[in-house]
């Protein structure tokens, strides 16, 4: 296996009322291609901050984050946006689908941004929605889908440009237990098919499904273990 993500002595401070809040205090982490990693820990321990840095939507105060050998912290806005578009897929707790677009159009959005021709977009979005078992919901708007279905559309959207890394922030947080299990199964299937998956979660079931679990506390990694997952 090759290293896909390499974080070295990453620190992230946020100003709050004139003082610095240390969200991350020197985190170092390697993620290999094809891994399924869960980041767990109590609220406020820095899980989401770390995920934002791994996803290049935030830059570290110090230290470095390399994804596919590129130091994403040193990229300008235009470059880092293009990098996210082509290399990283995001799944959010609250799905964040565009309510004005159908399921298929939502999946097509990152491909349109990447300049994929319309016919190819249509074909791939249909395939992806079939992959997440929504082949019969292509034209449905988010408001016509259940929470679990919306999250599956969001996962299909995250996969649209064949990212090297799929990041998910509490992807089962808004779902009931049964639907949550379906999403956990879907992540397992995605990883089995070769996608590198990193999830931030409080969900023990989702953490157990991962093959590696990183425990955080007070902005630091306190335990890094292989899971039976």
């Amino acid at each position: 296996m090759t290293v896909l993500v390499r974080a070295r002595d990453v620190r992230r401070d946020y100003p709050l009322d004139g003082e610095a809040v240390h969200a991350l205090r020197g985190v170092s982490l390697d993620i290999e291609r094809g891994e399924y990693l869960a980041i767990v820990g109590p609220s406020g321990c820095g899980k989401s901050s770390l995920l934002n840095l791994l996803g290049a939507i935030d830059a570290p105060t110090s230290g470095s984050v390399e994804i596919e050998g590129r130091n994403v912290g040193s990229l300008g806005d235009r470059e880092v946006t293009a990098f996210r578009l082509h290399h990283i897929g995001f799944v959010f707790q609250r799905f964040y689908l565009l309510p004005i677009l159908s399921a298929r159009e939502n999946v097509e959005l990152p491909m349109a941004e990447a300049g994929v021709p319309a016919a190819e977009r249509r074909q791939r979005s249909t395939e992806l929605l079939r992959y997440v078992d929504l082949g019969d919901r292509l034209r449905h708007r988010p408001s016509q889908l259940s929470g679990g279905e919306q999250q599956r559309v969001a996962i299909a959207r995250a996969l649209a440009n064949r990212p090297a890394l799929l990041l998910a922030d509490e992807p089962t947080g808004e779902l009931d237990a049964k639907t949550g299990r379906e999403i956990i199964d879907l992540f397992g299937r995605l990883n089995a098919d070769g996608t590198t998956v990193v999830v931030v979660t409080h969900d023990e079931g989702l953490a157990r499904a991962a093959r590696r679990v990183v425990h955080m506390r007070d902005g630091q990694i306190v335990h890094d273990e292989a899971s039976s997952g």
Partner: protein
Amino acid sequence: MRFVLALASLRRNRARTILAVLGVAIAAAMLLDMVMLSTGMRESFRQLLLSRGFQMRLTPRGTLPFDTEASIPGATGIAARIRSRPEVDLVSAVLGASVHVLRGDSTVTSFALGVDPRAQGDYELAAGADALAPDAIVANEDFLRATRAKIGDTLRIAAGYDPQLRSHSGERALVVAGRARFLYLAAGQLAIALPLRTLQQMTGAAHDDRASLFMVRVRNPSTVKEVSRWIRDSFPAIDVISTSDAMARVDERLSYFRQLSAILGAVSLIVGFLLVTTLVTVSVHERTGEIVVMRAIGVSRLHVVQQIVLEGTAMTVAGAVLGTGLGLITARYLNTILSRFPGLPAAIDFFLFQPRDAWTAIGLLTACGVLAGLYPAWRAASLPLAHTLREEAVA
């Protein structure tokens, strides 16, 4: 995709979009009307002055046409001398006077123009024949209505009235030969035209052959200045008002209208700008989460800005197009009111539609729409992603 997204965003809040478009349409209508008002009256006046091709008006020194009762003696000789210039195509001597139509115990007072019907530039014949015979007149609709006369009728018309003796002078029996539309007269003003010599005889101006005004047409407009200079030098008692001189005077008198229309036009632009800015800002604020997620999944800042600006522009263009129609309707209505303005020729249009005006109004508003969307769009596209996502999650 950006265009689809922009239209879909507008459709999402249909009622708000419709209200915004209506608001912009009203601003556009007002802007168009103001642009039309600022240029229309001037252009309309210019077209009126040139409608019969006469580029110069000759008046008694220090007066404007028919501003006073002053007149110029020796009209036939002056006209002949001016006509002798090779550059000159046509000279029309005109005498203006009040006349009274005697109808039993009552009289109807009217304005009369003594002209050479073959060279006149004051009216257009609408029906019947021109006043070629010495006892023939042409009259406008208002005159015919007031005197209950029709073409072919003979009327007793006097040129003078002595209030002490209560008697009329210069009385003649004149035949209504035709109906005419007078170009320079105010709405509702009664008017007739008759041969210059006849009116001179009736008013007593015949013995020294007086005229109130000469209109001169040159073959080549580039010679106007040269001919004007020659007339001024040759006839010191005459003022020459060329079309450009008249336009300069009109500009001076219309400066109030232009300032007013510029201010009101600017106000409507500002209103349109603020309306679109407010609506785009509200719309963007409601969609902060969506916009940040779009940025997070890799949609460029430029494309987010383009999409939001497109929304503002689409609203503005729709409003501007609708407003153009609305502006034309209101301009027509306002024109009918303002055309009754006393002392102004009825043929003057305050709101003269010129395609350039419509393009100006639409162009200005579209530019406003683009500018109005830029700031909220740029702000939204520049939000810190991680921080905003965290805030959205907490919210």
